[in-house]
């Protein structure tokens, strides 16, 4: 198939270079070094789930494509399949494989698979510092000679080896590696190559993908050829498996493993240098069944102090009360009232439900300091490699809710901002798990702004009130999780997660990540927030808002046993739960709520959907139908739990 012949060297006109490698080996850091474009970089597998592209700074006319990490072909997960599709759909001038030097066998296994594709290839053996700290000595010249590609040792985080890498890419050659597989596989390969369509990769490599049952490869082939030929391909693969007594993929893997083992043995030496140091020890302790818990408590306490006390307390006080409340808002209100004589339009900006009074003030003065501190804290945790370790500690709890420990990541994010956490459910394995976590986030995970107000209210009552509130909310979380796991179809995915080494966070990376997330917050969350405010303004001006408040009074007073004016707080709770909590806090300070009413009201509001922005995010992630179903369940359920709690507290005679 001449049409399938791969390009042998980088041409000045063909200019796509794909960055490919195992998860968490530094592809995105290298991408940043080569292009100057920042993509999210973290110390856990699965940070990149979509493609990123950028023009290379030191290679003219070259476009670098950063791909999601792939452990090996055949691709298994949705993000791995993105990488397979890129190779099959786009002609690449070269492949830059990024490999973890200390995990040489895993790296070389992928190297061999890429080399068989026949495209110009360069291997960046990254994390050489960590390999050396483990006492590993790598003979990269030997590897280069055996595979027929350039192999460049790098430490991407420090920029070491970048110049050599650029030179290597300019002279990248296609390797001439040819592995001979067992007879059954070779016979099947000869048969399928005649039926396979042209692709940017070597026909033999496409045949190997097919025989290994790569899902993305199968789909691509199916889209290219007719049903009769596709059926023939299936028959050839099945026949080969029948003859050899095992799937072709297993035979292919064994051949590659044998070659890689011999190759690694010839290029790898280990000295007696000990790799034990404090971070290794801390990493082990952080997943220990006993010592892991005090470490977790320390981390959570640090998070609470930085985000809850410093961010939500000190910074919000400075920005909201002093800056906006004392200076900016009085000046802006006066300015608008002077310049705009029409009351309706002036109210639109600075009235009770004005986009400046509510939208801008709360987005910039209340939420921004909290999310800013949370993004910093979360960036540090991401960079350290600690977060995947929480999956180990929390797995048993999530198991009871039909999930696995990976769900802890979006749950923790939800304590900062449920809207953002809803997006991060993408890291979970299957749709069922993502749906379950989104439901639990929307129902019972309070965001930091609300948590601050709630804790303030509870502190004004008693420790018993705090225990009742936390007990009910956690109980609901567990109960709904347990029930939903049994109702939502699909099987629970068992936990299997790679634990990256603990590392000291890199300041510049945490800063870049925080700024990138703040940009996301301003671009995506703030517009939704302003839209919600405008909606509230229109309801107020059309006199629908007072009607809604009056209609809610029987429910609020009759069922929940709260004062009638609580209705307006609950209505604001649809916009943002923390607005409602603030209104309730004001009522408490005026002595309008008994201890029992405080507990009932904040339990009810905690179980509301967090904010209108998070509802829109659920629409974006799971569709309008799912979002509507969740809203229809959550709001009545919140009132149901609140009312039942009111009756239980009445029955036991607590806080009347």
């Amino acid at each position, binding site marked *: 198939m001449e049409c399938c012949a791969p390009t042998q060297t980088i041409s000045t006109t063909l200019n796509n270079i794909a960055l490919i490698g195992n998860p968490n080996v530094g592809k995105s850091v290298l991408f940043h070094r080569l292009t100057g474009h920042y993509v999210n970089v973290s110390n856990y597998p699965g940070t990149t789930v979509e493609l990123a592209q950028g023009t290379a700074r030191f290679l003219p006319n070259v476009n670098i494509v950063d791909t999601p990490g792939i*452990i*090996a072909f*055949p691709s*298994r997960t949705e993000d791995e399949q993105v990488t397979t599709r890129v190779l099959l759909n786009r002609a690449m001038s070269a492949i830059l494989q990024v490999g*973890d030097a*200390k*995990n*040489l*066998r*895993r790296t070389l*296994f992928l190297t061999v698979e890429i080399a068989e594709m026949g495209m110009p290839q360069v291997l960046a053996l990254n994390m050489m510092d*960590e390999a050396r700290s*483990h006492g590993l000595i790598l003979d990269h010249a030997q590897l280069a000679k055996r595979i027929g590609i350039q192999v460049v040792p790098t430490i991407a985080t420090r920029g070491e080896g970048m110049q050599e890498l650029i030179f290597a890419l300019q002279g990248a050659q296609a390797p001439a590696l040819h592995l001979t597989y067992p007879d059954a596989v070779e016979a099947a390969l000869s048969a399928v190559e005649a039926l396979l369509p042209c692709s940017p990769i070597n026909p033999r490599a496409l045949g190997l993908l097919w025989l290994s049952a790569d899902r993305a490869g199968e789909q691509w082939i199916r889209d290219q050829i007719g049903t009769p030929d596709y059926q023939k391909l299936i028959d050839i693969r099945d026949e080969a498996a029948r003859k050899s007594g095992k799937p072709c*993929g*297993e035979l292919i*893997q*064994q051949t590659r*493993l*044998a070659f890689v*083992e011999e190759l690694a*043995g*010839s290029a*790898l*030496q*280990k000295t007696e240098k000990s790799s034990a140091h404090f971070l290794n020890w801390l*990493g*082990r302790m952080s*997943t*220990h*069944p006993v010592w892991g818990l005090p470490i977790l408590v320390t981390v959570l306490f640090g998070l609470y102090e930085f985000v809850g006390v410093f961010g939500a307390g000190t910074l919000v006080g400075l920005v909201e009360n002093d800056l906006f409340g004392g200076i900016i808002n009085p000046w802006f209100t006066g300015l608008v009232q002077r310049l705009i004589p029409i009351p309706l339009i002036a109210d639109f900006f600075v009235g009770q439900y004005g986009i400046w009074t509510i939208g801008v003030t709360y987005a910039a003065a209340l939420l921004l300091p909290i999310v800013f501190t949370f993004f910093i804290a979360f960036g540090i945790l991401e960079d350290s490699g600690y977060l*995947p370790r929480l*999956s*180990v*500690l929390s*797995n*048993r709890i999530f198991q009871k809710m039909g999930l*696995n*420990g990976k769900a802890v990541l979006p749950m923790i994010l939800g304590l900062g901002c449920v809207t953002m956490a809803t997006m991060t459910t993408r890291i979970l394995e299957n749709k069922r798990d993502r749906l379950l976590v989104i439901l639990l986030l929307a129902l019972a995970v309070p965001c930091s702004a609300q948590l601050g107000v709630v804790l303030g209210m509870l502190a004004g009552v008693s420790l018993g009130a705090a225990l009742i509130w936390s007990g009910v909310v956690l109980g609901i979380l567990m109960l709904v999780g347990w029930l939903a796991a049994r109702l939502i179809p699909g099987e629970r995915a*068992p*936990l*299997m*997660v*790679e*634990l*990256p*080494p603990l590392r000291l966070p890199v300041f510049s990376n945490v800063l870049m990540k925080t700024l990138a997330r703040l940009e996301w917050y301003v671009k995506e969350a703030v517009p939704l927030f302003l839209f919600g405010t405008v909606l509230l303004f229109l309801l107020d001006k059309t006199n629908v808002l007072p009607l809604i408040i009056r209609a809610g009074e029987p429910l609020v007073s009759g069922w929940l046993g709260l004062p009638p004016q609580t209705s307006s707080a609950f209505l604001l709770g649809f916009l943002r739960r923390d607005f409602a909590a603030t209104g309730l806090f004001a009522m408490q300070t005026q002595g309008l709520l008994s201890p029992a009413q405080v507990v009932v009201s904040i339990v009810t509001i905690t179980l509301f959907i967090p904010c209108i922005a998070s509802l829109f995010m659920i629409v974006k992630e799971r569709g309008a139908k799912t979002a509507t179903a969740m809203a229809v369940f959550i709001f009545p359920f919140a009132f149901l739990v609140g009312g039942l709690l009111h009756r239980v507290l009445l029955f036991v005679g607590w806080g009347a």
Partner: protein
Amino acid sequence: MLNLWNKTTQPAQTWSPAYRPARLSDLAPGKRAAITGFDERLAVTQKELLQAYGMHAGCTVLVIQQRPVTVIQVEHTELAFETEIARLVCIQAV
């Protein structure tokens, strides 16, 4: 040349539930074992994933902990997975 992991790539064995060789879940933390194969009850996707991480027949793994989940080291990769999976990985202590 020092061979660190004493690996040989052997065809993976698949054991029937009736015969029960030693399992990864039996091994105490701090002990090493060679993988000999996988129980046939292990889901294909999980088996493939373990193999992709380097846990194939012939390779040696170090058990770091068994509770609350199994954590092992293969080459310089640390993997955590549920004990139910470890029970389906057949080993020979080294």
